[in-house]
């Protein structure tokens, strides 16, 4: 009973945070706008077309990401090869790249002056490629974790009973992977549906999402009534998706003790071909644009790399380190508290998606309205970082909690352990890998600073990402080169962060907490 009570109390922390940082600002903005939005707002064919387009591209991306990501993940999980652990960590890198830099990388490959000689600019292919660049890694990571949690004994039993590998996949692995995939695809959908993403940048304004319309209404026209109405519409649409996902995830969860199947080397020619093909696909979709950026930076020459010695760059590096560390600390606390509390209530689980479904520009302007005295403070900026980063920790830990067999902590209690002790000794070791995974995603979000330009900032708070945007705000080859060099540094920085966060690289073994 006391455990239930304390879990309820835990919910207060993320709820207070969400209310202060997201709901109250949105409400304040809606209040400022009043109810006088134009009646013909929703009659507009162009708006309907945009909504339809946003939905279509989000769904198409989800389908493609699943169709390509699941087989890729299967190969990466089942076969051992050198550098496998590192590749799984590097999968988060696209997340960190500022969209403009990612677009430069994509165009360096498939642009009018691209190295492939294939000019895809202004074609739908480039849009889908851009979407997959950012979202495929999400699906691969999730699917790979899911497949790693398929009990080896079950697979062995299926194979002994005469199942082909194909049949074993559908009967044993697929049911285990479903909740993980649902979770990842839900995120992919939300990103593509409401994002400012790469697709827009590569496709031009014709393919603008509704979020861009909201941005223009708020930031340029100050038409808060229309913007608020649109933001609520988006909130309802994507909120429904988030709620559906939370329900699905909980329903599909199957707690159980897991002895994962260890990856084995690819032996036969068919297996090797499969592995090589998977790695090639991964390189094409996730690595190529990043390599193009790094390659251009390397070929920029010594003068371009001199930017690393500049005081501004060093200060930006220090800020990046400082802010990400602070934001991650906040995200860790909030994320854990939210996940532990969300096990009881479905709505609370869905609420973790709130930061993904709220219009960032509305939140940014709402914060400004609500706390004008705090608007240019570091506290608010870090709060915004944490807001966007912490749901990853929640998501990851909540999924892991579903997998903890309830008998285990119960047994510990029966044997005389106090509730906190049972948590620390029994549950926590099982959660730790998921916690670290979530934290790695949170770090990627904090480093990528998705919505950072919307908030008030000070020159002395310049981070690597803002410095890159500053350089790309001026003409000239030297500025472009500096931006590419800084982006490469950002990648290196992110890689080290991911490796440190997920250090031991192996899921905690049962023996760890014996």
């Amino acid at each position, binding site marked *: 009973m006391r455990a239930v009570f304390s879990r309820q109390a835990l919910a207060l922390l993320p709820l207070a945070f969400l209310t202060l940082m997201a709901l109250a600002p949105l409400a304040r903005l809606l209040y400022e706008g009043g109810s006088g939005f134009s009646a013909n707002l929703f009659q507009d064919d162009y708006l309907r077309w945009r909504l339809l387009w946003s939905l279509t591209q989000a769904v198409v991306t989800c389908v493609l990401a699943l169709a390509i990501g699941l087989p890729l993940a299967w190969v990466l999980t089942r076969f051992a090869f050198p550098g496998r652990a590192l590749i799984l960590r590097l999968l988060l890198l696209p997340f960190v790249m500022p969209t403009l830099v990612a677009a430069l990388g994509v165009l360096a490959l498939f642009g009018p002056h691209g190295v492939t000689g294939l000019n895809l600019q202004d074609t739908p292919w480039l849009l889908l490629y851009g979407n997959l660049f950012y979202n495929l890694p999400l699906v691969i990571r999730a699917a790979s974790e899911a497949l790693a949690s398929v009990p080896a004994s079950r697979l062995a039993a299926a194979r002994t009973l005469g199942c082909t590998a194909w049949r074993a996949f559908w009967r044993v692995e697929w049911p285990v992977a479903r909740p993980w995939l649902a979770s990842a695809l839900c995120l992919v959908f939300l990103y593509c549906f409401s994002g400012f993403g790469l697709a827009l940048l590569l496709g031009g304004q014709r393919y603008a999402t509704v979020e861009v319309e909201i941005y223009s209404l708020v930031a*340029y026209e100050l038409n808060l009534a229309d913007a608020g109405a649109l933001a609520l519409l988006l909130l309802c649409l994507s909120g429904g998706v988030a709620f559906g996902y939370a329900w699905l995830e909980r329903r599909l969860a199957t707690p159980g003790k897991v002895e994962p199947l260890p990856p084995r080397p690819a032996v036969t020619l068919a297996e090797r071909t499969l592995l090589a093909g998977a790695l090639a696909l991964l390189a094409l979709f996730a690595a190529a644009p990043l390599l193009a950026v790094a390659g251009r930076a390397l070929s920029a020459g010594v003068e371009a790399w001199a930017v690393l010695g500049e005081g501004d760059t060093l200060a930006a590096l220090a800020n990046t380190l400082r802010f990400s560390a*602070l934001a991650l600390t906040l995200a860790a606390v909030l994320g854990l508290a939210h996940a532990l509390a969300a096990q009881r209530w479905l709505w609370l689980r869905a609420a973790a998606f709130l930061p993904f479904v709220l219009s960032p520009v509305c939140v940014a302007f709402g914060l400004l309205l609500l706390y004008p005295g705090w608007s240019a403070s570091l506290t608010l900026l870090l709060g915004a970082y944490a807001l966007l980063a912490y749901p990853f920790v929640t998501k990851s830990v909540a999924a892991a909690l579903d997998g903890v067999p309830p008998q285990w902590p119960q047994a510990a209690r029966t044997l005389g352990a106090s509730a906190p002790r049972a948590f620390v000794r029994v549950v926590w070791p099982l959660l730790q890998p998921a916690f670290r995974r979530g934290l790695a995603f949170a770090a990627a979000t904090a480093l990528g600073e998705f919505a950072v330009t919307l908030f008030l900032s000070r*020159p002395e708070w310049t981070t690597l990402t803002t410095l890159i945007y500053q350089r790309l705000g001026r003409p*000239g080859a*030297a500025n472009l080169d500096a931006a590419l060099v800084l982006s490469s540094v950002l990648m290196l920085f992110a890689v080290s962060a991911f490796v440190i966060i997920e250090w031991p690289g192996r899921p905690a073994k049962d023996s760890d907490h014996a």
Partner: protein
Amino acid sequence: MFKKVLWLALCTSALGAQAAELRVLTHSSFALSKELLAGFEQQSGVKVVVIKAGDAGEMVNKLILTRANPIADVVYGIDNTLLGKAQQAGVLEPTASPAGAAVKQTLPGMVSVDYGYVTLNYDKAWFARQKLALPTSLDELTRPAYKNLVVVENPATSSPGLAFLLATVKGLGEEPAFAWWGKLRDNGVKVAKGWSEAYYTDFSKNGGSRPIVVSYATSPAAEVFYSKEKLAEAPTGNLLLKGGVFQQVEGVALVKGGGQKQAAQQFVDFLRSGAVQADLPTQMWMYPVLPGVKLNPVFALAQQPTAHDTPDSRAIAAKSAGWVSRWTRVVLKSGY
């Protein structure tokens, strides 16, 4: 370690609050030599807190939204496209210009600091390679020879995009201007969200396929300044066409309801001082309003427009929202 950092952050922000602070709101392109700002702080005895609020349009809206509790004492970077809007909302304190020499450009009710031109830039190498003659009027851009060659910024999300739209309306007349935009759309104009996107992903000089881009008249000079090897000539040029040049004047003013009036006025004077006026051209790529300031020699490589089509700031305030939504209808919405 985290605790230490947090503690440090808290301490510094607490300390900072004690010294007298002058809060300066600017757009994200604001840049000035650090030594100059440090010199001003020493002279005036206040600490300057620069707050960047995004693009100029976004900045003005943030100022308007927070007028009950102003977030700054001085605002720099409001230009003639936004002045009327800011004045109608009543967020600016009438600000006196420093006494002294007459300046090249003025802004009613504000103190002008610098000026520049939004215009079309073209990729010289591209035109030489294709052996295509440069267009001599906006109208020619709608002909088949120039199909798919132009990229502009969306006036609903970008300041130079808005400035260019205003120039076409003033230069061609309202009705002909929108007819021209319709023809330009049919001729394959591409619309980018902002300047950085247009310049670095669509302009043929960089990653894209379009040799004509809406940019600034000083951009060719900046291309030389920021080039890797010393160039004798700019790789891009200005395409100064009738109806395609907008004169932008940026200024500084006190914020209504802000504090530190005396320091704020000192800051206004500081931006008009010879030292700042000489520093800003290669920092922000604008021309100084103070006459007689020596420019960096690279500026000679960018042709300065002699004529421009700029509506007055009152007309802009009254009509630009309507023009932008009409532009959206003509260029983006038609066909849906």
